[in-house]
């Protein structure tokens, strides 16, 4: 068990965001988090990451903060620093090797080796997200929390991201992944959590959920089950 949520409720002032959510995330498990806009998915993910505190309930985890990787819409990068300098900064904060020799292979994995010394501010959205991915891989996280990571990415960047996520799963990392494209992504997950009107209305096998069949030959490929 990587993470367990016990009766999590979240309010912003008097506005209810989440009500009495309980679930567990296990090692090597890919969990899809779905729900309509405003259902509380991003908030739940932020609570799992420790970025937001629940109003009621508590989290149980043996993971240290440095074992949790969070990938959202924002890239946590500094536009005025180069790709390498951005990674050096995060590597130092996480007490990882931070020499150019140590970080170059990581940038090569996300195909940014040639842009090593370029300012991140001139990168495209796809390149920024790839650099963000490199930052995430640097941590070697045991739990990956992904908030619609493919939003705004070109197909090449999306493929790269999917491949790295697959590798992480194969290495035993747990993944919680917010998706709006449940039709296609459901077949790639082990479990599905569905939020509706602030509550958890479904928690079960993703493949057992009553969903339309995935579109054949999806252009972005698929994760192995």
């Amino acid at each position, binding site marked *: 068990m990587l993470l367990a949520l016990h009766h999590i409720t979240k309010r912003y002032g008097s506005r209810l965001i989440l009500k009495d959510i309980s679930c567990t995330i296990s090692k090597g498990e890919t969990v899809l988090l779905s729900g309509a806009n405003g259902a509380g998915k991003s908030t739940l993910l932020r609570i799992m*990451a420790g*970025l937001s505190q629940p109003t009621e309930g508590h989290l149980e985890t043996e993971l240290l903060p*440095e074992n949790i990787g969070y990938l959202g819409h*924002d*890239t946590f990068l*500094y*536009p*005025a620093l180069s790709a390498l300098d951005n990674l050096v900064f995060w590597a130092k904060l996480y007490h990882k090797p931070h020499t150019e020799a140590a970080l170059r292979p990581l940038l090569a994995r996300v195909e940014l080796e040639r842009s090593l010394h370029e300012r991140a501010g001139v990168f495209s959205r796809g390149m920024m997200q790839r650099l963000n991915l490199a930052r995430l891989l640097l941590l070697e996280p045991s739990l990956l929390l992904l908030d619609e990571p493919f939003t705004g990415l070109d197909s090449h960047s999306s493929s790269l991201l999917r491949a790295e996520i697959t590798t992480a799963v194969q290495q035993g990392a747990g993944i919680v992944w917010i998706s709006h494209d449940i039709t296609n992504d459901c077949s790639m997950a082990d479990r599905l959590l569905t939020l509706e009107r602030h509550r958890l209305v479904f928690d079960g096998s993703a493949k057992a959920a009553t969903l339309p069949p995935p579109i054949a030959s999806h252009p972005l490929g698929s994760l192995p089950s």
Partner: protein
Amino acid sequence: MMRSSLTIALKDLRLAFAGSGGLAQAFLLGLLLIFVFSLSQDVGQRMDAQEAAAIFWLASVFCQVLIFSMLYGLEESHKARLGLLLMPAPIQAVWLGKMLAGLCLLLLAQLLFLPALIVFLGQNIYDSWPLALLALLLTDIGIVALGSLLGALAQGQAARESLLSILLFPLLIPLLLAGIHLGTACFLPEAPENIQSWLGMAASFDALFLAAGIFLFSFIYTGDD
């Protein structure tokens, strides 16, 4: 925590010098203030030492409002703040790191302000300048401790510089009085009175607001917007 704070401070200093002029604005504002106040004097007239010290500290405080507004603004463009919240070190490392960076930048600014005081306000440096230097360091530490705490508080507001100013100035009065009184040691041939009492005042202020920063920063700097 110290290592993380130094990493953040060095990153901030690097970004401050690489930035698009935010630092230059802060320095220029201080210099302008000193120059404008010199217009209150007749040609050839020498300003009273206490008045000169007061203008020096006024320029310093306005300068550091812009400095901390810039330093905390660095974390907002790509929400690097969330990345800092996830780092393994205590969140107070951000407060301490920004404080150290702010202190370096403020000292640099004051290196510029001092010649301006000599040139525009007709001041001379006398033998008691080591006392003035000690007072300067003690006063600067208190200013940046509180500035770093309130800089985080004001971040995200539309008129954050003016908000930071109206919050900071009245709170800093005790420290500024100490800085002004002991600062006259630099510009007068005789040492000022009550040196120990004023040094004690500055040290008490520093201790109080260093403690306040450590205890209260985690409430202000969160992932909840």
